[in-house]
C-alpha cells in the first residue's frame, strides 16, 4: 500500500505537467489535478507558433541519425574486437574503453573550437558529430557477440560469405535484444541532451527541444501553462515509447546496467 502511494507521488510531477498543459490560464493556479474544462488550446498555440514544431523535428532527426550511426559502428567495432584475432586488438579495445573515463565537459571546449574552424557551428552535423559512436556501446555489443558461437561464423565462411556479409546477415540478427537496448539508450540520451546542443547552436531554428524549451521558459511573458505544454511535448513521446516497449526497455536497463 505504501509502495502504491510512493509510486503515485513519483508520477505526480509528470501528471501535473500534463494536467496543466490542458488547463486554461485562469485555472493554472488551481491545485486540482483534473482540469475543470480541459482544452488543447495550449497545444495549438505552441505548435502554431512554429518553433516547437521545428525543435521537435530537429531533435527527432538528430536522435534518429545518431542512433543509426551508433548501432552500426558500435556493433561493427564490438564484433571485430570479439571475433577477429589480429595484432593490436587489445590495444584498440583498451584505448576505446579508456575514453569512458573522460567526461564530456572536458571535451566541449576543444569540440567548440574544432566546430568553429571547420564551420560546423550551428549545423546538424555539429550537434551530432561527438555522439556518432560511444565506447559504452562498443563494450555492450562486444559482450553480446561473445554469445554468438564461432561455429556459425565458420559455417558462413564455408558458404562463401565475405566478412561483412557474415557480420550483417549472420551475427547481427542474433544480438537483436542488445541492439534494441543500445538503440533506446542512444536515442534517449540524444533526445534529452542539453549541454552540447546548447553550446553548438546559435540560431533558434537549429535548437533541439531541450535547448528550445530552456529559452522558451525564460521569455518573461511566457505563461506557465505554455511552459508545461512545451515540457509535455518534449516528454510525452518518450513516455509513449516507454509504455509500448516497457518490458523490453526495463530488460535493456538491467542488461546495460549490469554489463556496464
Amino acid at each position: 500500500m505504501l509502495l502504491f502511494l510512493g509510486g503515485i507521488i513519483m508520477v505526480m510531477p509528470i501528471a501535473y505537467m500534463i494536467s496543466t498543459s490542458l488547463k486554461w490560464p485562469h485555472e493554472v493556479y488551481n491545485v486540482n489535478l483534473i482540469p475543470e474544462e480541459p482544452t488543447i488550446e495550449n497545444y495549438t498555440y505552441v505548435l502554431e507558433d512554429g518553433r516547437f514544431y521545428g525543435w521537435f523535428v530537429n531533435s527527432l532527426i538528430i536522435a534518429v541519425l545518431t542512433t543509426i550511426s551508433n548501432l552500426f559502428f558500435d556493433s561493427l567495432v564490438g564484433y571485430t574486437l570479439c571475433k577477429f584475432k589480429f595484432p593490436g586488438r587489445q590495444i584498440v579495445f583498451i584505448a576505446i574503453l579508456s575514453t569512458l573515463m573522460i567526461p564530456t565537459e572536458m571535451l566541449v571546449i576543444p569540440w567548440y573550437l574544432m566546430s568553429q574552424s571547420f564551420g560546423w557551428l550551428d549545423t546538424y552535423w555539429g550537434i551530432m558529430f561527438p555522439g556518432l559512436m560511444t565506447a559504452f556501446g562498443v563494450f555492450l555489443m562486444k559482450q553480446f557477440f561473445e554469445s554468438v558461437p564461432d561455429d556459425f561464423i565458420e559455417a558462413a565462411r564455408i558458404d562463401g560469405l565475405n566478412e561483412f556479409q557474415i557480420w550483417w546477415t549472420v551475427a547481427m540478427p542474433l544480438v537483436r535484444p542488445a541492439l534494441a537496448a543500445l538503440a533506446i539508450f542512444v536515442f534517449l540520451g540524444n533526445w534529452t541532451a542539453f549541454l552540447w546542443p546548447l553550446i553548438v547552436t546559435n540560431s533558434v531554428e537549429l535548437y533541439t527541444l531541450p535547448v528550445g524549451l530552456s529559452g522558451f521558459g525564460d521569455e518573461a511573458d511566457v505563461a506557465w501553462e505554455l511552459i508545461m505544454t512545451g515540457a509535455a511535448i518534449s516528454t510525452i513521446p518518450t513516455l509513449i515509447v516507454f509504455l509500448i516497449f516497457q518490458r523490453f526497455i526495463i530488460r535493456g536497463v538491467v542488461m546495460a546496467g549490469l554489463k556496464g
Partner: protein
Amino acid sequence: MFKNLTIRQKQIAWAWAFLAVPVIFYVVIRFYPTGNAFVISFQEWNLLGTRSWTGLDNYVKLWNDPVFWKVFINTFEYLLIGTPISLLISFIIAYHLDKVRTAHGFLRMLYFLPFMTSAVAMAWVWRWFYQPVPTGLFNNMLASVGIPQIAFLNSTTNALPAVLAPAVWAGLGFQVIIFMAGLRAIPTSYYEAARIDGVGWWTQLTQITIPLLRPTIVFIVVFSSIGFLRIFDHVFNMTTNNPGGPLNATKPLVLMIYETAFSSFDMGYAAAQTVVLFLILLVVSLIQLRLLRSD
C-alpha cells in the same frame, strides 16, 4: 592481390578495414580533444585574440578564486546529499517491490516513469512547483492548509536541496531496476536455509541480502556519484534568470565551466576547470571502488 593473402592475413585486413573509420573517430573526436583541453588549460585565450602560454597561471587563479571554492563545495554537497539519499530510497523501494506480487509491473512502471523524462522539461516543472503564491503548486498547497510560504529557489539555504530533489527523483527509477535485478540474482535457497534456522528478517537483510548485493551497490554508488558531480541541466534550467544563484548557492562546477567558457570566453581558465573536474571524477571513482571492494 587480395586473393594471394593467407586466410590469417585476410582476417587482419578485414579487421582493420572495419576499424578504420572508428579508429579515426576516436583519435580525432576523443583523444585529440582530451590532449587539447590540457594544452589550453596552460594558455590564456579569449577566443578572438592570440593564444599565449601562461604556465600554471590558470590553476593558481583557480586556487585563489573564492567562487571556485564555493562551487567546489556545492558540487560535493550535491554528491554527498544526493548519493546516500537516492541509494537508501531506491533500496527500500526495490526491497519491498521485490516481494510484491500483485500489480508488480504497474508499480514498477510508476517508479520508472520519471527516468524516461527529459531533465530540462522536469526542471521547469519543478521550478513551477517552487514558485511563490499564487503561481507555485507547493506554496499553494501550503497556503491552503495555513502554513506560511517557503522560499524554495530564492533562499541561499533552500535552493540547493530544491534543485537536487528533481535530480534524485529522476534517477530513482533506474536505481530501483538495477537493485531489483541484483535482488533477483540472490539464490532463494539462502533465504530458505535462514528461515529453517529461524533467523529474523533483519539478520537476513544484513547477513545475506546486503553482502550479496555488494557489486550492485558499488555500481550504483559510482554511477550516481558521477552523475551528481556532473550536475548541470537541472541547475541551469531552474535558475536561468540568475544561473547558479542566488549568490552562487546552487552553482556546480559544470555550470562554472560553461559560464567561464561561453559567457566570459576565458577559454584557458575554463579548460583548467575541466581538468579539475576530470581529476575529481577520477579520484572519486577510484576511492569508491577501493573502499567498497576491500573487506
